[in-house]
């Protein structure tokens, strides 16, 4: 077999026909395991520098206020205070622009308020001092004069005629005339003719739904250590999903040259999308520049809740028509999402994902991006999609109930397949929705009997996934072991997956490979770890980098044997002559080649840089049983099964972990979690006590089924797995709770008071 026939170079399709993997698909221990169980792993807040100062940030107590003046004199006079910064210490070269075109300005404005405080928690000024306690004391000495303005925090209220205008001129050209200036972006898409479709239906249901803002809830608060000199050279250590992005933004916000700022990503204590942008990093650098000393800045949990990205809250209207046989004849949705005081609520994804699981002749979706006086929303695991699934799958569930149809059979009947025109436009390539539905139908959970008081819900979900800019370098050592540098922070064991893929190509043991997340000065550009792109894109780049190294290894063997390069192939860590015509040579082990690499042409490395465009969309189907206590309104999830298409599971245990983690976050979103604002526009539950995420005793074991329908865009067939798992839970749980309680739940979270109110309304009304 010649090198270019080497199997893993073929696409996912070929591999499906029984390619036997040696390492991929196994479940070895993660390389950073010991560091993480002994407390040695260094996260964002775990690093110090000699002479380091501590920073603290003053935040607005008002939801909306003009900043009339900031007097820092008293703070500066406090013993131990070394620097105070305000917006004046950041770039004035960045200009606002409508919609997402003004995103750099939006980020700057969010990092440090300009003329106005736009939400409760908005940063106003910051202090660096010799101790954290002194910095906190100093913050209290900063005197700010505010002119309090009317505020709005609810998405529907913010669109009403009388709503206070948050920032005029922010709307981009997509917004049709006549809407409130708080509506800043607009999306509309679909195909066919929904009016005709509805007219054909045997039953049409129209209903409205809301979801509240929830926080990503990573247990590690944002933390960083910044060092910046007056010479414009700096270093930054921080917990982030993407340090090149941090580098780019910090450089812009502080008028630095990008390359002069070296950013190192620490171990990261969860992100889920919330660590794809910056909050405190430019502030630490600005303080450091002014004090000429390293500055460490760590957020408190209350700051995390008040000032970092929750997800959007939504208000949605859905209308779906169905025939008696279960065929969906038409579907339409209106999705209104608020993403805080800036453009960017992911309403276009809400709209595009809403009906993606179904093959629809007539579909129409509209989205509104609305500004309110809340923190700037940040991405949260499949941003925008879970809310859409909640609304759409609730209506489909109701249609199935009223028509007496099995909910999974109806999904199967209407399921998108390869070649289906997606609700968002193009035709699907190879996808695995049908396989997940069939696996759910065959799962014992689906036919298990329910206890009294319990209900079963199911839902499908969809997410796009993403490729993105990627660089990977692989270097071989003289003993034949390999080191790999990737640029995508490892959030859930991805170093393990990279090592498995490299082991597969190189044919050397997994343990002989060390994967490092490189800093921005040590590797080329890498996009943020988001969009479930790590195993897909960094994995693809790792495979390609390893293949480049293998080509060079074969070249060295060919030179030694004095035969043609293409007469050598690579197998299981050995260069071998390809058949009798190539000559009879003893296979050469990798270590035999690397030991002499210096003398035979120099070090052997492989590298790969590209923007892989073949991420492959993915689907999941979830089944959940819930029990509702009609006395207290409290809900217990008693059984949960996740079925999802992973394309190819590189490390199945970590794939299961992603499935389970997404389901658990979805359970929290569905049942408990919400941002609660008072009439004063202040966040009322900025802590884990009142913002209650699921704890161990709230949850059952979460069963998983990994479906593998290879992605044609990846050498091993990988699809992203991290995000799709949070798409179905809101809907699946709402359907289960509605069945158990006997009343349709249209507003999340389905907290005990909401359930009691719904039960009361039903019996009273």
């Amino acid at each position: 077999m010649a090198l270019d026939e080497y199997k893993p170079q073929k696409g996912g399709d070929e591999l499906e026909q029984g390619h036997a993997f040696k390492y991929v698909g196994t479940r070895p221990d993660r390389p950073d395991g010991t560091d993480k169980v002994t407390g040695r792993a260094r996260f964002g807040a775990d690093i110090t520098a000699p002479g380091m100062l501590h920073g603290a940030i003053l935040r607005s107590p008002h939801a909306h206020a003009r900043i009339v003046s900031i007097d820092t004199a008293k703070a500066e006079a406090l013993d131990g205070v070394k620097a105070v910064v305000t917006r004046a210490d950041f770039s004035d070269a960045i200009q606002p622009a409508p919609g997402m075109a003004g995103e750099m300005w939006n980020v700057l404005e969010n990092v440090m308020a300009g003329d106005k405080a736009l939400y409760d928690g908005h940063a106003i000024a910051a202090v660096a001092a010799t101790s954290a306690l002194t910095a906190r004391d100093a913050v209290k000495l900063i005197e700010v004069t505010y002119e309090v303005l009317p505020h709005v925090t609810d998405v529907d209220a913010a669109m009403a005629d009388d709503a206070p205008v948050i920032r005029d001129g922010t709307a981009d050209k997509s917004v049709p005339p006549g809407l409130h200036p708080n509506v800043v972006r607009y999306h509309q898409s679909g195909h066919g003719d929904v009016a005709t479709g509805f007219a054909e239906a045997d039953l049409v249901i129209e209903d409205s739904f809301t979801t509240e803002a929830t926080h990503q809830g990573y247990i590690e608060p944002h933390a960083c250590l910044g060092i910046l000199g007056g010479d414009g050279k700096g270093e930054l250590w921080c917990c982030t999903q993407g340090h090149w992005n941090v580098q780019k933004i910090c450089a812009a916000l502080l008028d630095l040259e990008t390359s002069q700022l070296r950013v190192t990503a620490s171990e990261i204590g969860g992100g889920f999308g919330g660590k794809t942008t910056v909050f405190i990093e430019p502030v630490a650098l600005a303080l450091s520049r002014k004090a000429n000393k390293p500055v460490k800045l760590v957020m408190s949990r209350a700051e995390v809740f008040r000032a970092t990205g929750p997800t959007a809250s939504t208000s949605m209207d859905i209308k779906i028509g169905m025939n008696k046989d279960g065929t969906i004849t038409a579907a339409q949705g209106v999705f209104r999402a608020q993403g805080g005081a800036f453009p960017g609520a992911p309403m276009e994804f809400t709209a595009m994902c809403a009906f993606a699981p179904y093959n629809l002749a007539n579909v129409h979706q509209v989205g509104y991006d609305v500004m309110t006086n809340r923190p700037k929303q940040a991405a949260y695991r499949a941003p925008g999609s879970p809310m859409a699934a909640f609304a759409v799958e609730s209506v489909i569930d109701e249609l199935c109930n009223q028509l007496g149809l099995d909910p999974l059979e109806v999904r199967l009947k209407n399921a998108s397949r390869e070649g289906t025109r997606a609700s968002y436009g193009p035709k699907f390539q190879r996808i695995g929705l049908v396989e997940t539905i069939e696996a759910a139908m065959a799962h014992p959970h689906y036919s298990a009997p329910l206890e009294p008081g319990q209900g079963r819900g199911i839902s499908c979900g969809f997410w796009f996934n993403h490729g993105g800019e990627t660089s990977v370098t692989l270097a071989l050592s003289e003993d034949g072991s390999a080191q790999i540098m990737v640029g995508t922070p490892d959030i859930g064991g991805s170093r393990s997956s990279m090592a498995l893929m490299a082991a597969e190509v190189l044919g050397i043991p997994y343990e002989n490979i060390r994967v490092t997340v490189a800093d921005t000065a040590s590797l080329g550009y890498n996009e943020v770890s988001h969009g479930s792109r790590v195993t897909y894109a960094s994995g693809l780049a790792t495979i390609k980098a390893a293949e480049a190294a293998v080509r060079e290894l074969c070249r060295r063997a060919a030179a030694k044997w004095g035969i043609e390069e293409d007469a050598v192939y690579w197998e299981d860590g050995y260069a071998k002559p390809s058949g009798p015509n190539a000559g009879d040579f003893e296979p050469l082990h990798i270590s035999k080649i690397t030991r002499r690499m210096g003398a035979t042409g120099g070090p052997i490395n492989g590298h790969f840089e590209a923007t892989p465009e073949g991420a492959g969309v993915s689907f999941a189907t979830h089944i959940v049983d819930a029990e509702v206590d009609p006395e207290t309104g409290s809900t217990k999830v008693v059984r949960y099964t996740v079925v999802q298409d992973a394309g190819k599971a590189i490390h199945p245990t970590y794939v299961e972990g992603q499935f389970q983690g997404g389901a658990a976050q979805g359970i929290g979103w569905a049942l408990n979690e919400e941002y609660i604002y008072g009439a004063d526009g202040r966040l009322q539950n900025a802590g884990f006590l009142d913002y209650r995420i699921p704890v161990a005793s709230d949850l059952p074991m979460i069963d998983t089924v990994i479906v593998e329908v290879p992605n044609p865009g990846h050498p091993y067939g990988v699809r992203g797995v991290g995000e799709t798992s949070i798409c179905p839970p809101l809907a699946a749980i709402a359907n289960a709770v509605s069945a158990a309680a006997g009343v349709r739940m249209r507003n999340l979270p389905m907290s005990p008071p909401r359930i009691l109110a719904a039960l009361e309304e039903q019996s009273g009304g």
Partner: protein
Amino acid sequence: MSKIHVSTTINGDTAEFLCDPRETLLDVLRDRLGLTGAKEGCGTGDCGACSVTLDGRLVCSCLVLGAEAEGREIATVEGIAPGEELHPLQRKFIEHAALQCGICTPGILVAAKALLEKNPDPTETEVRYWLAGNLCRCTGYDKIIRAVMDAAAEMREAA
């Protein structure tokens, strides 16, 4: 404000430090003694990431003042592995992939160890309720519970 002098024992070793009366035990461990294994997830006793034991009792070190460590015995995640070998709980956490990001892991290991010392044969429900004060946002707890149960079984066999 003048500082307080404290003598204490941490993971079996004597330690001395000066601290501000307002500093928590967690601040002291992390910022004065370089023991950054315990994490601050909330600072208000709600997440368990800062779990340590104080005279054998499981506590949130963010709710204990540094000055309260005087004359007490403190155990942190750094002291769980006796030597080169990992403790069975640590091994099982790696084996079962009971951590994704790992920020909750130190606190959960300290808490789980305290549980198994009191109750070597806990049921799934007992483990779930014992760990209810330790938040994990990544795993959905499934693999954590399995790892604790498995470690308990192994430790019972070895005992």
